[in-house]
């Protein structure tokens, strides 16, 4: 287990390194940030000076080595645009994104899994078919498009729900949260639902597939043959087995929820990391882009680790660390 965790950390570090290199080269390939940041009035010398002060005049490999060096000292660089340490900028926005992603994931779980159970257990019924049809629809609707429609319907036409930002926040554990205020909750409903829609569909199908598979297993037949009651069968025997793959997927999908928050955040003006990364790309704000990706990678490493640990907790057959599955 220790070996396993260490291995994961090494892997994570390798990705971070590879990622940062790719981003460095990539952003360099896009162009010179000074051309975007500077006031067009500024004369050529000023531009030179800015380039110098931001360290952009050096050859790329030197910039990269310098970055690695300071990264090892915990300094991921300072945003060109904001002159705020990139990592701070991101961590400030992280709660908003996490909150959105978590709410969406919870929503997806709360809606997806029960619906999946219902449709998996009563495979042939009309309502199961309805649920499945609905889930295909959920798969097919592009997130951004749904977001706009949601805004149009619930924000503009009906005027029921706010369509931008987080609303009131309260401080909790040193971080601003909006899910703990009524106003904040009102604000999160639409974006979270928007983000969750795809996942709801996914969880419905996963759960259903899991149920249909597990129900045909010998051990369920045996449990039936032992006269175990239906409800008990569902809660004890079926659910625990299907949760194993679902937990994995929830973990992996949480990452993609965070990533897709890019779209939702920019539509709903949700002040999270996703919106930041778009703007940073727009401004070629390299330190922020690099730092963002690093945070994401670290988050993934952690999530994957958690998923694996959870998996091992749920499934007694799993031995952590055996690299050959």
């Amino acid at each position: 287990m220790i070996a396993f965790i260490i291995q994961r950390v090494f892997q994570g570090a390798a990705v971070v390194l590879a990622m940062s290199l790719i981003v460095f080269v990539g952003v360099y390939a896009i162009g010179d940030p000074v051309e975007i940041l500077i006031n067009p009035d500024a004369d050529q010398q000023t531009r030179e000076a800015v380039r110098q002060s931001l360290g952009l005049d050096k050859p790329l490999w030197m910039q990269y080595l310098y970055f690695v060096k300071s990264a090892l000292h915990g300094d991921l660089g300072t945003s060109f645009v904001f002159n705020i340490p990139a990592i701070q900028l991101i961590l400030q926005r992280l709660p908003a994104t996490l909150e959105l992603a978590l709410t969406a994931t919870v929503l997806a779980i709360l809606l997806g899994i029960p619906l999946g159970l219902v449709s998996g257990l009563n495979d042939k019924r009309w309502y199961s078919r309805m649920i499945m049809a609905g889930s295909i629809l959920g798969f097919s609707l592009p997130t951004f498009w749904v977001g706009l429609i949601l805004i149009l319907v619930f924000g503009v036409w009906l005027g029921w729900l706010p369509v931008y930002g987080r609303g009131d926040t309260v401080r909790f554990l040193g971080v601003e949260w909006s899910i703990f205020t009524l106003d904040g909750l009102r604000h999160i409903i639409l974006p979270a639902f928007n983000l969750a829609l795809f996942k709801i569909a996914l969880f419905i199908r996963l759960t259903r597939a899991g149920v249909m598979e597990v129900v045909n297993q010998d051990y369920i037949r045996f449990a039936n043959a032992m006269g175990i009651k239906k409800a008990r069968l569902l809660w004890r025997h079926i659910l625990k087995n299907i949760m194993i793959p679902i937990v994995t997927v929830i973990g992996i999908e949480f990452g993609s929820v965070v990533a897709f928050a890019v779209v939702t955040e920019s539509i709903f003006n949700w002040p999270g990391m996703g919106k930041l990364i778009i703007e940073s790309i727009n401004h070629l704000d390299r330190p922020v882009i690099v730092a963002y990706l690093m945070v994401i990678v670290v988050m993934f490493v952690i999530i994957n680790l958690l998923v694996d640990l959870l998996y091992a907790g749920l499934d007694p057959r799993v031995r952590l660390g055996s690299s050959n599955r």
Partner: protein
Amino acid sequence: SAAEDVVIGVRTEAASVDPHFSYVATSKAAVTNIFDTLIMRDKDLQLAPALATSWEHIGDGVWELKLREGVTWHDGEPFTAEDVLFTFERAPNVPNSPAPFGQFLSQISDAKAVDDHTIHITTRNPSPQVLFDLAEVPIISKHAGEGAATADYNDGKATIGTGPFKFVSWQPGGALKLARNDDYWAGPSEFENIEIVAMPNDASRVAALLSGDVDLIDAVPPESYETLENNDGVEIWKTPDVYTAYLHMDTDREVSPFITAKDGSEIKNPLLDPKVREALSLAINRQAIIDRLMNGLAQPAGQLAGPTMTGFNPDIEPGAYDPEKAKALLAEAGYEDGFKITLHGPNNRYVADAQIVQALAQMFERIGVATEVETMPANIFFPRGSNREFSIFFLAWGSAQGTAWHGLRGVLMTYDKEKGYGPSNRGRYSNPEVDRLTIESMSTFDVDEAARLSAEAAGVAFRDFAIIPMHYQMNVWASKDGFEYEPRQDQMTLAYGLSSQQ
């Protein structure tokens, strides 16, 4: 009547509330809510007294400025000449600034306090430029700002201004929160609390207004203009913009990367020929573009400077539309069969930019110039443009200071790295006459004379079709019914400009 608390949705967020961190219009707008300048530009770009009540040239390039008395900082400390001198010291020297303020203080060779409320500023060149420059530099307080870094401004420690609002909090990507300064020298605002939120997505911004979540939005997209105008709950506020859209052309290289004959073979760059440039200008139906793509929210342009600017040349007509004549000119220049170009443009920078580029292509096609279109986000567009990777491209120039010579210097003067001329001259147009007149205009003390020289330079350049001016953009705000907003030409969205309708 309107509420005490107001939420404003703006297109672009501030990079910092450090007033001297980065000279970009949006940061400046945010900062202007908190800090004042010595001289301010009013909504029509005219210079007006602010922290300085009067200014006078007392000879030898020395200006005497009288400072407003009785002004106090947000923390109650009195405002004095020391603060001004401190500002002059700090403004050009903010570390890591991506757009430093140095250029606005480069005219000043010396500044000293005569008494608490009088300062003398010595300039290098005998020109009124320093007054325009001073309008760009927010004055910070010495006692709060001494030794303060950008971060200290961002978290409010040093953000002590004299402006109409006090700083409450700011989060990049979040909101800028302000509270009314009851002691503002020009009288307090009506509103107690202001929240300025960045909403880059146009549709979301409009939706937020329509759904009642915000009270005022800026940069109303032309697509939504009509709807908002017809909406009873919404008021529209508009004014001409300082931005002038134009086409920049490679007028320098013999062979240009994106120009070929129609069969794809290499040809000599036709844009070197002013006739061809004129033909392209004549091909453009500016009014159609304005009407169909911008909902009428623009004016046809014939030069860079807008009609209200110092140095505007009234003799230059807005570009005419005459495709027949365009074809004739092309034939005259030896291109009766036309040629092939790729027109580049940004797709997220200017009003309707991507659509305008496509419309231009449609129009060029009609005079026999086969046109491809390539649009890209501004982050890719500008570096590529500066690298001279394009042959003809669409962009805009903003003369935020309201003077014509800025545009001339930036866009039309011969590119000269040493002297700092033509930094945005991406087409490398070069005309000694334009250079001479512009330099002269910039070093003339008499504003009227400077304006005349600028206008003359413009006359030369635009007869030459150095660039093809397209239109003057329009700035549009929309507020909830019951509010009144004072629209500004320089695009700044200022909370102080908002009031409730009686």
